[in-house]
C-alpha cells in the first residue's frame, strides 16, 4: 500500500513537473526571450495596433480639388476661398486685385471618416453642399494598406437670375452634381500624390457641344519643403469632346503654410470657380496669356465636440 502511494506520488510529481516544464517552455518558443533586460515585452506577445497614416495633405483641399483629408470628428472648419481677378487684366485692375471672387463654407467632421460641408460662392451665386467619406485608410500594423480612398459627392445650385425669364425655366436646371473617387498615397513624410477620377453631371448645358455628363481625371500632389511649408500642384484632365472649346483644363500651383490653428494656401490657377463643376469643366483662363488668378484658401478649425474615447477632465 505504502509503496503504491509513494509511486503514485512520484508519478504525479513527475507529471506536474513535466507540465510545468511545458508551461515554462512555452514563452521561450516565442521570439528572443532574454529574461532580464532586453525583451521582456515580447513575453506579452501583443498584437500590433493598426495605425492610420495622418496628414497625407495639410488640409481638406489640395488647391481647388478636395484631398483625402477630412475634418476630424467633432471639428468645425470655417473656410474662406478667395480668387482675385485675372492677372492679365493689367494695371488698371491692379492685375486682378480689384476683383474678388470667393466662397465661404462651414464644414464639419461627423465621424473621423465622414465629413459634410456647405458653402456659398459669389461665382454664379452658387450654394453648395457635399459629403466626403473615407472608404479605405492608408496605414500599417495588423494590415498594410498602401493607399487611401475616399468618395466625394457634391450638389451645386446656381441661383443667378434666369437669362431668359420668358421661357419655361425649371429649378432642376440650376443643379449640378459631382462624384469623385479620391485615391491618394503618402509616399513618405514629404511626398503625397492623389488621383481623382471624376464625373460631373449638369442638368442643363448651354450648347450641343457641352455634354451633360463629363468625365475627367484629376492629378494632385504636394511636396513638403519644411514641416510647415509645402508646394502643391493639381491638374484636371477633361476627356476629349465633352466641353466647349472655349474651356481649358484646370491647372493650379501653390503653397501651403501652416501656423497653429490655421492653414493658408496661396496659389495661381486658371480656374475662376471654386466649386467642382466650375473649375473642372468651365475654366476660361489660359496660363500662356496670363489668364490666371492669384488666390488663397484660409482654414480655421474649431473643436466643437470632444470625440475622444476617454476625455480626461
Amino acid at each position, binding site marked *: 500500500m505504502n509503496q503504491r*502511494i*509513494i509511486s503514485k*506520488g*512520484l508519478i*504525479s*510529481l513527475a507529471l*506536474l*513537473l513535466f507540465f*510545468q516544464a511545458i*508551461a*515554462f517552455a512555452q514563452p521561450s518558443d516565442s521570439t528572443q526571450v532574454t*529574461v*532580464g*533586460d*532586453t525583451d*521582456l*515585452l515580447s*513575453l*506579452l506577445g*501583443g498584437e500590433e*495596433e493598426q*495605425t*492610420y*497614416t*495622418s*496628414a497625407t495633405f495639410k488640409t481638406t483641399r489640395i488647391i481647388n480639388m478636395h484631398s483625402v483629408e477630412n*475634418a*476630424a*470628428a*467633432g*471639428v468645425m472648419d470655417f473656410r474662406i476661398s478667395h480668387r482675385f481677378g485675372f492677372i492679365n487684366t493689367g494695371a488698371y485692375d491692379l492685375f486682378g486685385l480689384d476683383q474678388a471672387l470667393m466662397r465661404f463654407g462651414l464644414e464639419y*467632421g461627423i465621424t473621423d471618416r465622414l465629413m459634410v460641408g456647405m458653402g456659398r460662392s459669389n461665382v454664379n451665386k452658387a450654394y453648395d453642399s457635399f459629403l466626403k467619406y473615407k472608404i479605405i485608410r492608408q496605414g500599417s500594423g495588423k494590415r498594410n494598406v498602401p493607399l487611401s480612398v475616399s468618395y466625394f459627392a457634391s450638389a451645386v445650385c446656381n441661383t443667378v437670375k434666369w437669362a431668359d425669364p420668358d421661357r419655361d425655366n425649371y429649378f432642376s436646371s440650376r443643379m449640378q452634381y459631382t462624384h469623385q473617387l479620391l485615391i491618394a498615397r*503618402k509616399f*513618405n*513624410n514629404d511626398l503625397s500624390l492623389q488621383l481623382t477620377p471624376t464625373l460631373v453631371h449638369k442638368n442643363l448645358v448651354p450648347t450641343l457641344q457641352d455634354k451633360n455628363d463629363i468625365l475627367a481625371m484629376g492629378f494632385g500632389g504636394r511636396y513638403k519643403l519644411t*514641416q*510647415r511649408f509645402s508646394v502643391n500642384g493639381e491638374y484636371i484632365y477633361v476627356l476629349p469632346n465633352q466641353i466647349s472649346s472655349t474651356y481649358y483644363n484646370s491647372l493650379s500651383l501653390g503653397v501651403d503654410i*501652416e*501656423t*497653429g*490653428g490655421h492653414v493658408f494656401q496661396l496659389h495661381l490657377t486658371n480656374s475662376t470657380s471654386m466649386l467642382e463643376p466650375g473649375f473642372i469643366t468651365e475654366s476660361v483662363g489660359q496660363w500662356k496669356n496670363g489668364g490666371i488668378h492669384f488666390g488663397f484658401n484660409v482654414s480655421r*478649425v474649431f*473643436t466643437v465636440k*470632444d470625440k*475622444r*474615447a*476617454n*476625455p*480626461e477632465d
Partner: protein
Amino acid sequence: MKKLILATALVAISFGASAQRYFSKTAHIKFFSHTSAEDIKADNYKSTIIIDQATGAVQVETLIKSFEFEKALMQEHFNENYLESDKYPKANFKGKGDFSKVNFSADGNYSVNVAGQMTMHGATKDVSAIATIKIAGGKIDGSTKFYVNPRDYNVQIPDVVKGQISEKIEVTVKATLQPLK
C-alpha cells in the same frame, strides 16, 4: 503522502516564481505642458508596461499615435511636425528598479527608484523617477511622474510657438498591473 506534500509545495513555489512578472497593456501615460500662454495635455491609454521582480527590469512601450488631444489639429501637428511618428512610431523605456522588498501578494505601499533610458523621436536619454506601488485587495497600482524637456529628444519647436510649449513637460504614468502567467 510526504511526497505529495512536497510535490504540492514545489508546484506552489514554482507558481509563485512564475508570477514574478507583472504587466499592463492599458497603462495610461499623460503629459502636461504648462506655460502662461497655453496648457497642452494628451492622454494615451494603450501603453504597455512590464516589470520583472526577480531581475528588477522595467520596460514601457507606447505608440506615439495613441496620444489623444482635445484638439484634433494639435494631435496631427504633434505627430506630423513634432514627434514625427511616421519616422519614429514608438517611444520606450528600459530600466531597472529594486522590487525585491515589494510583497505583491499583501496590501501595502512602496516607493521604488526606477532608472533607465527613454527613447523617443530617435533620441535616447537617461531618466529616473520614483515609482509608487500600491497593493490593496489584490489590485496592484503602479504610478510615477517625471519631467521631460522636448529639446533633449531633438524635437524642433519653431520660434513662434516657443512660448506655448514648456521645456519641462510633466509625464505621468499610471497602470494597474496583473501577474504574468
